[in-house]
């Protein structure tokens, strides 16, 4: 009989390889955050460790211990408390890597795994996404496998292991990991959910949002940022309705747009109602995006500014979720808007006035004026580069550069309309978004930032988009979807608790109340029950157990110390004994030859059992 064995040497290599993998898993989570030097060092030390391992040369442990202590001191050399975390993680990374250099007994391996786990844990301080779950699973499987292997070798004192056994160990490791995951899922309920780092150490660039003041050319920085601003769960609607309103600007001083603090108007709005849920990523500003034109946001601590802007009273430090209602195809009727929608900057260039007059020379109606302005602006180039500047950037845009981004288009149009006596304003927000059919949501990125114009014509506010840009790239559907699910499941759990956390900085106020204890207890109970049920199902499915159950009906019970044949000797009458013997023979043949109980085999055994059972009935 030929058995494949893995020798001692190969096992050592195997363990070492797994350990390197385990070390690399947390490293993959942090390498973008820590300094390049440390990353390079980590990789180099790992490579050296592989080399040394192959050459069977080990750095003495005493030397490694001294080095580790030095690394521990290293973060304390940075006096600034904000910078404390990152150096600590870097030090941990280095300690982990040099651990790989030494001679590795069971103790050293355990140290490596512990350090790796610590590092993975600390990586969540920097960044936490759904990939964390993947890393955790891999880490669990590998660590458990390796510990099982070490324990197996130590307990059996054997120097080799058959591949079959190794695969079995892998199975066990996987099983343990999978079973322990529901338990570890509990941590998500117990720990505060943090899609944003627990401690903001300024590594994650805060996402730029719309502020109540926008300098011309300021939106570009947002447009160049491709990070996700929000996801909106709603049905798919026509692309032309996809204007996400954030803030309405009414005052322009020649260089920047501003929002009047307490402008209040009560328009009469009608249209097609639509409900949706927004998952807003953390941002630096408190204005909440809504689909144009918003009716209401259902979230505590949000106040309405004017009719169309919503502002959170708390800093948005985490992903938040809110429901909202809007009108698409809105009709916004207002009797007479305030006169400041006609205000022009004080030192306003006459050249623009002349140009406007020229464009709208033969316009009789307001509609005609709008049409002429739009057609004139369509001659201009849309560009994010080489933006107009100077004291009067609008003039620069219209007469010199003749190219710019939405800000210039929208500003120019709004000013021209005001010159012609049409009340107008500029709205900041996002346009478009890609729809994810799997998740049923729109994904809006910072690069979708946009400015457009609203003009009061015929007693209604109407939307005009002079830049008319629609530029969308394809999104990686699956990964975004997983990300979305992670966010909505992990974050959805208790929004109010999150808001409480957001409001009160002291995290101790989150009560680890009875509910949590109950949840843990119930979860443990459920896991325990599932275990029991699985074991029970396996048991009653096992043909041998069934066999003993049937024989018990006949009045024959097997003692633990009895072999199957010994048990058989007690059985009578002969007819039953013969049938029982057939079963035992078939079972033995598989069991004592260490063969697998295949489906066919179990089927055969079942048939034999049925025969024994028939004896019972007759």
């Amino acid at each position, binding site marked *: *009989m030929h058995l494949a064995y893995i020798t001692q040497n190969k096992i050592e290599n195997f363990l070492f390889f797994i350990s390197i993998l385990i070390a690399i898993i947390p490293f993959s989570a942090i390498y973008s955050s820590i300094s390049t030097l440390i990353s390079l060092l980590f990789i180099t030390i790992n490579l050296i460790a592989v080399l040394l391992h192959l050459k069977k040369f080990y750095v003495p442990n005493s030397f490694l211990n001294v080095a580790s202590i030095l690394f521990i001191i290293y973060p304390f050399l940075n006096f600034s408390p904000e910078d404390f975390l990152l150096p600590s993680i870097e030090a941990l990374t280095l300690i982990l890597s040099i651990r790989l250099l030494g001679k590795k007994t069971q103790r050293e391996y355990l140290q490596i795994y512990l350090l790796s786990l610590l590092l993975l844990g600390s990586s969540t301080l920097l960044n936490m996404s759904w990939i964390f779950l993947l890393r955790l699973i891999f880490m669990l499987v590998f660590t458990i496998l390796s510990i099982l292997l070490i324990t197996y070798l130590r307990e059996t004192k054997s120097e080799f292991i058959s591949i079959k056994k190794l695969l079995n160990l892998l199975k066990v490791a996987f099983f343990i990991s999978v079973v322990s995951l529901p338990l570890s899922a509990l941590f998500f309920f117990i720990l505060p959910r943090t899609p944003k780092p627990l401690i903001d150490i300024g590594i994650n660039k805060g996402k730029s949002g719309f502020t109540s003041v926008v300098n011309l050319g300021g939106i570009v920085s947002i447009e160049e940022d491709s990070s996700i601003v929000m996801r909106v769960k709603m049905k798919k609607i026509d692309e032309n309705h996809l204007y996400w309103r954030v803030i309405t600007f009414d005052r322009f001083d020649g260089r920047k747009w501003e929002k009047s603090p307490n402008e209040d108007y009560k328009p009469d709005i009608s249209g097609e109602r639509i409900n949706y849920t927004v998952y807003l990523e953390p941002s630096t500003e408190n204005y909440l995006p809504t689909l144009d034109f918003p009716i209401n946001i259902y979230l505590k601590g949000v106040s309405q500014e004017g009719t169309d802007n919503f502002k959170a009273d708390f800093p948005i430090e985490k992903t938040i979720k809110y429901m909202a209602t809007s009108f698409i195809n809105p009709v916004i009727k207002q009797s007479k808007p305030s006169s400041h929608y006609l205000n022009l900057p004080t030192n306003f260039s006459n050249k623009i006035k002349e140009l406007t007059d020229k464009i709208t020379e033969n316009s009789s109606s307001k509609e005609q004026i709008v049409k002429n302005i739009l057609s004139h602006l369509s001659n201009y180039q849309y560009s994010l580069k080489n933006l107009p500047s100077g004291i009067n950037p609008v003039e620069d845009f219209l007469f010199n550069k003749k190219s710019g981004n939405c800000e210039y288009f929208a500003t120019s149009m709004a000013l021209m309309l005001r010159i012609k006596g049409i009340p107008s304003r500029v709205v900041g927000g996002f346009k478009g978004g890609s729809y994810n059919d799997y998740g049923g949501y729109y994904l809006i990125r910072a690069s979708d930032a946009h400015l457009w114009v609203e003009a009061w014509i015929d007693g209604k506010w109407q939307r005009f988009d002079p830049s008319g840009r629609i530029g969308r790239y394809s999104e990686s559907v699956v990964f975004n979807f997983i990300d979305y699910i992670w966010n909505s499941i992990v974050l959805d759990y208790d929004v109010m608790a999150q808001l409480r956390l957001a409001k009160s900085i002291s995290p101790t106020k989150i009560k680890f109340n009875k509910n949590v204890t109950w949840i843990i207890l119930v979860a443990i109970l459920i896991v325990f029950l599932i275990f029991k049920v699985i074991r029970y199902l396996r048991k009653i499915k096992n043909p*041998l157990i069934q066999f003993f159950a049937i024989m018990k009906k006949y009045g024959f019970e097997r*003692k*633990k*110390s*009895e*072999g*199957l*044949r*010994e048990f058989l000797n007690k059985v009578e009458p002969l007819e039953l004994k013969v049938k029982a013997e057939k079963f035992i023979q078939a*079972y*033995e*043949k598989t*069991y*004592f*030859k*260490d063969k697998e109980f295949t489906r066919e085999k179990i089927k055969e055994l079942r048939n034999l059992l049925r025969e024994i059972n028939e004896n019972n009935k007759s």
Partner: protein
Amino acid sequence: MIEEIKNAKILDIISYLKNYLQGKENAIVLSLIAIFSKGHLLIEDFPGLGKTSLVIALSKILNLSFGRIQCTSDLLPTDITGLSIYNKNTGEFEFKPGPIINNIVLVDEINRATPKTQSALLEAMAEEQVTIDGRTYKLPQPFFVIATQNPIETFGTFPLPESQLDRFIMKISIGYPQREAEADILKKGSSREKIHQLTPLMDKDEIIKIQNEIREIYLSDKVINWIIDFLNATRSDNRILLGLSTRAGLALTYTAKALAYFKNRDYVTPEDVKELIPFIVTHRIILREDFSSKEEVILSILENISVPP
């Protein structure tokens, strides 16, 4: 034991021998197991119960050469191994092989030999070779020793220590024949003459082939674990002074494999081992005090070990 044997060849041998050795079926099966598992057999019994008949019958039917050593206290090692004698005609020393240079060797009343002779014999059994005057002679294959000892007449004997007994794979006793069997013997008279005329059913090569086949029988880890549980239980039991050695464990596996082969199976079950335990274990353990018989202690230990599956 005999009714479960299904291997045609073995069954042939047994049923053939049964005619000449009335009421000794178990002894026949056990000796065959000992032969085919490459072990040696110790028979502890009273004189006149047919030990010699059994051995001769085995040697005849298996077509093996037979040697006999009758042990006495003045028996010398060279009486067993043979010695070199000066030949006047050739002027050279000539090796005269002793009775041990045979396939089957009956060592009668081994406990009457002096320890020196005993150890020379056991040495030869273990090494399967003898060294005389610096020259080494290989013992013929297959090589099988059946030793007997008388449990009653202990005066002037040198009982084998347990460590030496360990070298015998099995210890059995033939016992008195059943009433009918004994009556039959008395009626027909001794069958010794007929036994010498037995026709062989097997030859050396075939025996060696079967021996090797038996070693290939599959022994599951489950059974091995159970055996180890049993070995450990004898070692930790407080009624037992000396527990079972690893060699005893090996003896269990080898003989169980042979029994499984006899039963026409290519795997070992715990029952195979269990059946043989009484013959393999009792001469290898020493009880702390004479609580009870060794058999009872072993049985009570087995009662407490759960058998797979």
